[in-house]
């Protein structure tokens, strides 16, 4: 079976569709790390909040997650922007270690709030197209997974255009490396920090909407993803956006193959094996720059 190229391709493709979600969550994390130089410990909690938002929009409002994303992505952008600008930044007094603690604190607050409001019940939604399979030649793929992969690639392209073709994107890259220089040309560093945090949060909301049709929500759902996203970010190189996307896709494939070899429930072992190997042999990741 393992020598059958069709089967291998099928496994690889399935891995890519799972990796697409990892890639998006990691992209948000990498963006925030790349610009603010902090690990956002609240990232998983934000994913969890977005999943609940999509869940309740569906169950209470009858809004499909693919429609809800049109409101949730901008909504979470604004939420992330305000969170950074008016909560995280003022409490941290400009110290990176404080920022770290504040995001950790926020994640504890969000998680417990979710537990209190919505209990630990595992919730899922039922959409008809979750059972729709699309034949792509080597295998049949559930429609939502295909959509997720397409969306991740699209976001990658959009992101690249934003970063290279617009003043905002250039300003974000400028702030990432040379804050004082950015101030000197009249870039508001505080604004760019908040925009980056907002963008990272918006991408997480997008990931939530893509994930919900084939996944579930609990108050702790974010942890698994954030752990993988962190691995992805380390794998791709801290702060590298392309690295985060490619790393996410790759980890999806690794997970799929180790799932086949070791059994479904052990699939993620492969991911953490890679994490450790990368840290041992290439601590700057594959796309990261060595810090001078």
């Amino acid at each position, binding site marked *: 079976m393992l020598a059958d190229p069709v089967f291998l391709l099928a496994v690889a493709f399935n891995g890519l569709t799972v990796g697409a979600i990892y890639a998006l969550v990691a992209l948000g994390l990498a963006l925030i790390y790349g610009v603010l130089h902090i690990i956002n410990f609240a990232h998983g909690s934000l994913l969890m909040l977005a999943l609940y938002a999509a869940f309740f929009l569906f169950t209470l409002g009858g809004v499909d997650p693919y429609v809800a994303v049109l409101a949730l992505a901008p909504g979470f952008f604004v939420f992330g922007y305000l969170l950074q600008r008016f909560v995280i930044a003022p409490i941290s007094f400009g110290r990176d270690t404080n920022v770290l603690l504040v995001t950790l604190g926020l994640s504890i607050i969000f998680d417990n709030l979710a537990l209190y409001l919505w209990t630990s019940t595992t919730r899922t939604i039922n959409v008809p197209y979750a059972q729709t399979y699309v034949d792509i030649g080597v295998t049949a793929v559930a429609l939502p997974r295909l959509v997720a992969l397409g969306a991740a690639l699209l976001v990658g392209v959009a992101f690249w255009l934003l970063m290279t073709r617009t*003043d905002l994107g*250039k*300003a974000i*890259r*400028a702030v*990432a*490396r*040379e804050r*004082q*220089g*950015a*101030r*000197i*040309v*009249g*870039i*508001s560093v505080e604004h760019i920090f908040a925009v980056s945090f907002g963008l990272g949060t918006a991408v997480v909301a997008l990931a939530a909407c893509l994930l919900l049709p084939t996944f579930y929500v609990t108050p702790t759902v974010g942890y698994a993803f954030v752990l993988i996203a962190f691995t992805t970010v380390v794998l791709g190189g801290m702060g590298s956006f392309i690295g985060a996307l490619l790393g996410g896709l790759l980890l999806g494939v690794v997970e799929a193959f180790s799932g086949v070899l070791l059994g479904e429930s052990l699939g993620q072992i492969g991911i953490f094996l890679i994490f450790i190997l990368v840290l041992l042999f290439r601590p700057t990741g594959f796309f990261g720059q060595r810090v001078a």
Partner: protein
Amino acid sequence: MLAVDGLHAGYGALRILRGLDMRIERGEIVAVLGANGVGKTTLNNTLCGLIRPTGGAITWLGEPIAGARPERIVASGLIQVPEGRRIFPNLTVRENLELGSYRRARRNRDRNLERVLIWFPRLGERLRQQAGTLSGGEQQMLATGRGLMGEPQLLILDEPSLGLSPRMVDEMFGLIRRINAEGVTIVLVEQNVVQSLGIAHRAYVLENGVFALSGPAAQLVADPRLKQAYLGL
């Protein structure tokens, strides 16, 4: 166009500027001289809003700007080419120049880019190159070009000759003169006393937190007190 009155600034308990008075008129080149660590860069950063003054007033084009946000000061045409250049090493030369018009003169970006490339043709050959890979002299040109992209009314140059070869220094001073001839008022912060006084109209000498000496450049060149200030004789 710029008036500084009784300016105080520093870092926490460290008081660096202790009552500066300064006037800059439109069209001038004014040199600010002083030994290492005397507070020249502190003065620039205070004028540009990067450091909050602890006392005194800064009046720019008739408006008080002491303590204003840096982006507002840039938008009003007071722009600096900082010490250490502070270019964006991960961006291309072109992107660096483009960001020079992030806050100001955005509409004239293409026209100003052409103008800057006439002043600094060497940058034109390297537009797609990562700025971090430029030589020191080229980086200084890039930082200066980036400053000019914002159509400054007043351009503050903080040690533009630092780390340049003697030939590049000459080139730089020649360019500063040309930029000034095109209508940009210039504050030139330098340790290169002789050459600075050669192109400046007036100069201020910073010492112990105050301007110990000031006057027309031609007079200061001959002033024995300047030598004293510099050589500690």
